[in-house]
């Protein structure tokens, strides 16, 4: 389940070439607008770009795009919601699982019955993480997952994700907090302006 990224580039950033071994977390830091989000969106195949991605020995190009995105789950910095209530975004058959995750991530249970507009930015970020974790991606792409969270919730997110890493999930974690990068990352890279990754 090792991730190989080779010559990934678009008009906005790159080329990027790096490897993340299975069950490890690559932390990427860097200033806003330097291309961190662009990189994650390219790996998730959401924007047109050049380059090659191989994960767990499978070339991404050989998979249909939806199948690839189930394997490589992206949790964006600004989450999107398509239904009215929070609960409608979660599979009702697996309520026990998302309730357990919500408890671990300190999301109030009552929130699921309410309108999505009632959820704060920080709550939405954790809800989006729960939604992505339910799909059990083998590669997890996190774009500033704790940007709007208090220290306690931040720790909760870090704990939940490190459990997944320990279970073999490969993670790329974008953050602009160098201390967090040190806590969660087995390896770290820095995004320089102009979209260049450097150690």
């Amino acid at each position: 389940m090792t991730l190989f990224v080779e010559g990934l580039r678009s008009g906005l950033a790159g080329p990027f070439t790096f490897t993340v071994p299975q069950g490890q977390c690559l932390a990427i830091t860097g200033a806003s607008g330097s291309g961190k989000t662009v990189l994650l969106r390219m790996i998730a195949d959401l924007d047109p770009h050049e380059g090659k991605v191989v994960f767990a020995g499978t070339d991404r190009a050989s998979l249909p795009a939806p199948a690839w995105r189930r394997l490589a789950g992206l949790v964006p910095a600004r989450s999107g919601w398509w239904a009215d209530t929070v609960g409608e975004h979660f599979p009702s058959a697996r309520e026990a699982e998302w309730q357990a995750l919500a408890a671990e991530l300190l999301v109030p249970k009552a929130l699921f019955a309410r309108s999505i507009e009632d959820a704060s930015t920080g709550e939405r970020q954790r809800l989006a993480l729960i939604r992505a974790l339910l799909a059990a991606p083998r590669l997890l792409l996190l774009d500033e997952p704790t940007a709007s969270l208090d220290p306690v919730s931040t720790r909760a997110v870090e704990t939940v994700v490190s459990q997944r890493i320990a279970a073999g999930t490969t993670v790329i974690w974008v953050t602009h907090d160098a201390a967090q990068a040190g806590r969660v990352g087995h390896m770290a890279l820095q995004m320089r302006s102009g979209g260049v990754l450097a150690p």
Partner: protein
Amino acid sequence: MTPLTLHAGDIAIAAILLVVDAALSIGLRLRFHRALAIASVRMVVQLVAVGYLLRYVFAGHSPWLTAALVLAMSLVAVREVAVRPVRRLAGGNAAVALPNVLGVVLLTACFALLTAIRPHPWYDARYAIPLVGILLGSILNAASIALAGVLDNVRQQRDAIEAQLMLGAGFGTATAPLLRRSIRAAMVPVINQMAAAGVITLPGTMTGQLLAGADPLDAVKYQILLLILLTGASCLAAVGTAYAAVAKLRDSRDRLRLDLLR
């Protein structure tokens, strides 16, 4: 019952109303008299021209001339549908509007002429041209609302659509809420038209027939047939246009390509 004939003098008397309007505009400084004058002259010139054109086409019995007129009317409708949205597709909005407007108007017009109306010959311009005209009016409405519904809202719905894509949903699933909303909005006018018919308004076709001396029940039968045709055509046009517009924003990797929208 014979239809009452109108003479030019009768219309001139009615035009006194327009003169009163213009006087009000000047007196109260409403400043619409210029636009009113231009619009009135345009209305008269356009309708008289169309009257002569239709008399010529009806007398000629040429299916080619009828077909040419149907095509010309459809192309004007396509243009109206294409310019309505604020946003433009990279390939041009007309590429979405053309097959839908033309396909739906031909389908519903032929269906009605061959089954319900059955003139001899079935393509008789006296029936085909007015039918196509009224169908195009509804198709234009439905297709332009559906197209604007997709193109003008997709940017705002980007996060919601991409959230589903990120979870591994197919493009169809991810765009379904936007599609459904656009199609529903496009169906509102024609459903309102049916619901209000006869109670809140007397539909135009029926009013025209009544003024021309037709029996009310005959006029009603025609109006019911027309409203059914208009609703059927609107729905097909709305569904076809919305799906075609969304398909233009998708690529082979199921990405939402907003860069193809200006």
